[in-house]
């Protein structure tokens, strides 16, 4: 018995079903992309590096306008792995000779390219989660201040997206496995060249990540990085690469053409707008914050002392007040009750292009505090407060050249739980013997070998005993021209052997 097929077989190709097929293929490609060995290694190294590095850079007191920029460089490693893996994945059917088999399926080549592009989006989203985790971890620290920028945070995921789509485009243009690795070598070198060789000018904004040469922190409204335009530029570049890849694969639909035109327009708008330089208002605001910070700062009083800070640094006042109180508690005479004015100062006129030193203040009992805190910044600020208590003004305290340095450094370090470690951190050459410069928020202080010797003796003795001696001999210890030997005699420690001559 035979049966006759009366109806021809109708293939199940409806307009809607190919969207579902693209989604299914995208899911498959995503799973494959995220389990490739280079991608897995890159993500592991990236995660390990960020977790290991987390909290080290800001000593637990991060400014979020710096943290957002610090999330940008590491995703380049992921981008590198993604560009190679996507390129390999897009060339897979050609490599295995299965291109002809795919020709009978419902998916034309350009839809397969779309599926590959969607898998890159998944990798970018995963990077976005990592970036958000890194930023969130710093933002949740109790000492965090300032405001992060979403546009800066977007750069990391956009780099992964851009590199993946460039890999896809390379696969469409050059059907050779060597193309993607060679492109990566060129990009690596270009990045090195532009970040190292041409650090200035508008050209550097054409690179995906724009690294600033300075480590100083500015209020978020004075940073003046065109972050939003740069994110638009990167997104436009990524869209260009992705849509041109679809075009090359044969998806010549009006929608794709319009998309390419839109992406080119986006890239141009972002690329031109980001190179505009600093606006006159920004220059004026930076000038005002540097020269007349009191116009933009708000001041609070605590225990009689005044603390003037930029609005974002309000929560830090308690930390500064704690240091001022501890230093004053060790001082004697009128300095024990002396009210000081702590003023936060920045040098913002050059933006983030370089580090500039601050000049010491000349008004009496006014101390400078910087924008960073934690780690070495604490003993530095402590030394500046002690100097003002002893010498009266910051200008006078940074030019002290006699035995008063012993008193200053005792006030600055005597309250610390590990004063010798703090001494090592506050000195420029990390030494605890011999002569060295002591760092402060403004100009430094010079410690001679003899003064260091006396101070070490003091730090080895019980704190209560030394505090009592300092208070009882306060007037003699803080009079100008006192020598280290006399200070040692007054404080009851053995006379120093070292050199007691400060630099000219």
């Amino acid at each position, binding site marked *: 018995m035979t049966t006759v097929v009366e109806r021809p077989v109708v293939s199940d190709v409806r307009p809607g079903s190919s969207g579902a097929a693209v989604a299914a293929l995208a899911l498959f490609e995503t799973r494959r992309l995220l389990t490739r*060995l*280079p991608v897995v*290694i*890159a993500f592991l*190294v990236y995660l390990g*590096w960020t977790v290991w590095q987390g909290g080290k850079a800001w000593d637990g007191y991060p400014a979020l306008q710096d943290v957002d920029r610090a999330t940008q460089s590491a995703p380049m*490693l992921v981008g*590198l*792995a993604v560009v*190679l*893996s996507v390129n*390999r994945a897009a*060339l897979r059917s050609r*490599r295995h000779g299965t291109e002809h088999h795919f020709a009978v399926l419902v998916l034309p080549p350009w839809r397969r390219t779309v599926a590959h592009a969607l898998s890159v989006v998944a990798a970018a989203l995963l990077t976005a989660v990592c970036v958000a985790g890194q930023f969130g971890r710093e933002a949740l620290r109790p000492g965090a201040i300032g405001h992060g920028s979403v546009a800066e945070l977007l750069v990391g995921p956009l780099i992964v997206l851009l590199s993946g789509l460039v890999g896809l485009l390379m696969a469409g243009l050059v059907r*050779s*496995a*060597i193309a993607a*690795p*060679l492109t*990566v*070598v*060129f990009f*690596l*070198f270009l990045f*090195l*060249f532009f970040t*190292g*060789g041409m650090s200035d000018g508008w050209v550097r904004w054409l690179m995906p990540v724009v690294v600033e040469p300075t480590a100083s922190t500015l209020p978020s409204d004075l940073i003046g990085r065109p972050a939003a335009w740069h994110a638009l530029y990167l997104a436009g570049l990524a869209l260009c690469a992705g849509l041109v890849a679809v075009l090359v694969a044969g998806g010549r639909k009006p929608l794709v053409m319009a998309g390419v035109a839109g992406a080119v327009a986006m890239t141009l708008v972002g690329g031109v707008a980001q190179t505009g330089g600093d606006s006159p208002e920004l220059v004026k605001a930076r000038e005002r914050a540097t020269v007349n910070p009191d116009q933009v700062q708000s001041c609070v009083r605590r225990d009689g002392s005044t603390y003037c800070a930029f609005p974002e640094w309000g929560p830090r006042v308690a930390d500064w007040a704690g240091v001022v109180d501890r230093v004053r508690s060790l001082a004697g005479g009128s300095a024990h009750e002396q009210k000081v004015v702590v003023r936060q100062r920045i040098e913002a006129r050059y933006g983030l292009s370089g580090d500039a030193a601050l000049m010491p203040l000349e008004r009496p009992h006014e101390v400078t505090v910087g924008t960073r805190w934690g780690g070495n910044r604490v003993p530095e600020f402590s030394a500046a407060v002690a100097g003002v208590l002893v010498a009266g003004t910051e200008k006078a305290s940074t030019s002290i050249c006699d035995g008063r340095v012993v008193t200053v450094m005792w006030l600055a370090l005597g309250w610390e739980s590990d004063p010798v470690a703090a001494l090592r951190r506050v000195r420029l050459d990390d030494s605890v013997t011999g002569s060295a410069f002591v760092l402060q928020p403004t100009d430094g202080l010079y410690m001679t070998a003899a003064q260091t010797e006396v101070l070490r003796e003091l730090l080895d003795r019980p704190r209560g005993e030394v505090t009592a001696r300092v208070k009882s001999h306060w007037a003699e210890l803080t009079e100008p021209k006192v020598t280290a030997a006399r200070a040692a005699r007054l404080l009851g420690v053995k006379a120093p052997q070292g050199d007691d001559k400060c630099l000219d």
Partner: protein
Amino acid sequence: MPRLSRELIFTACRTLPWGVVGTAGGAGLLLAALTRITGETGERLSLHLLRAAVLAFALGLVFLLDDPARHTTATVPTPRPVRFTLRVALVVPATAAWWTAALLLVPPDLRPPVADITLEAGAAFALAVAGAAVAVRCTEVTRPGPRVAAGLLTSAVLVMVGWPGRWALFVPVQDDRWAAAHDRWAVVLTGAVLVGALGAVEPLRRWSWRGAPGRRAAGRRGLRRAGRSARVQEP
């Protein structure tokens, strides 16, 4: 025998991936030639440029052992080490010529110490070929090139980014560690040559880390079933 060797050389020469190696070499020469136009920054960049050129050429050498017909040539009388050595021997003169050209493209006053940088280049090339040899030995793929290239590139970047300073490999010329770093490069070269030599030997039986998943799973199931029935049969 001499006639056979001549034919062998001719055939091997034809099957070498000259296109890929040539492209990589061209890209490398382009990078090396950039030192001529970088002006005063060239002095700082010439070493980086030469290293980038070496990396580019090494990425081409990774494809040296790609052989679509490897499953049919496994049974020919000429053993794999001979075929492997033949391929390497054929590409060595080209590599030497390329390296000389790359060095000559760098202006003489910007050129890093030639012997040391040649050692670095040799180690990189040896690593590339050794990686390909190990991939051929340990997998069944006919074209391991792209995979090894991705691995080589990723590891190069990782070494540049996160290699501990105590064992630094990529050091600038003025650095005190230059000499010590080149002792390490010599170790890398020796290690790569050894690994490459070991990888060239034909394995006695086929095995792979990444066989067809269905087949492997079925094989395990079969083994387990066999084991169970063996136990059942025990008294």
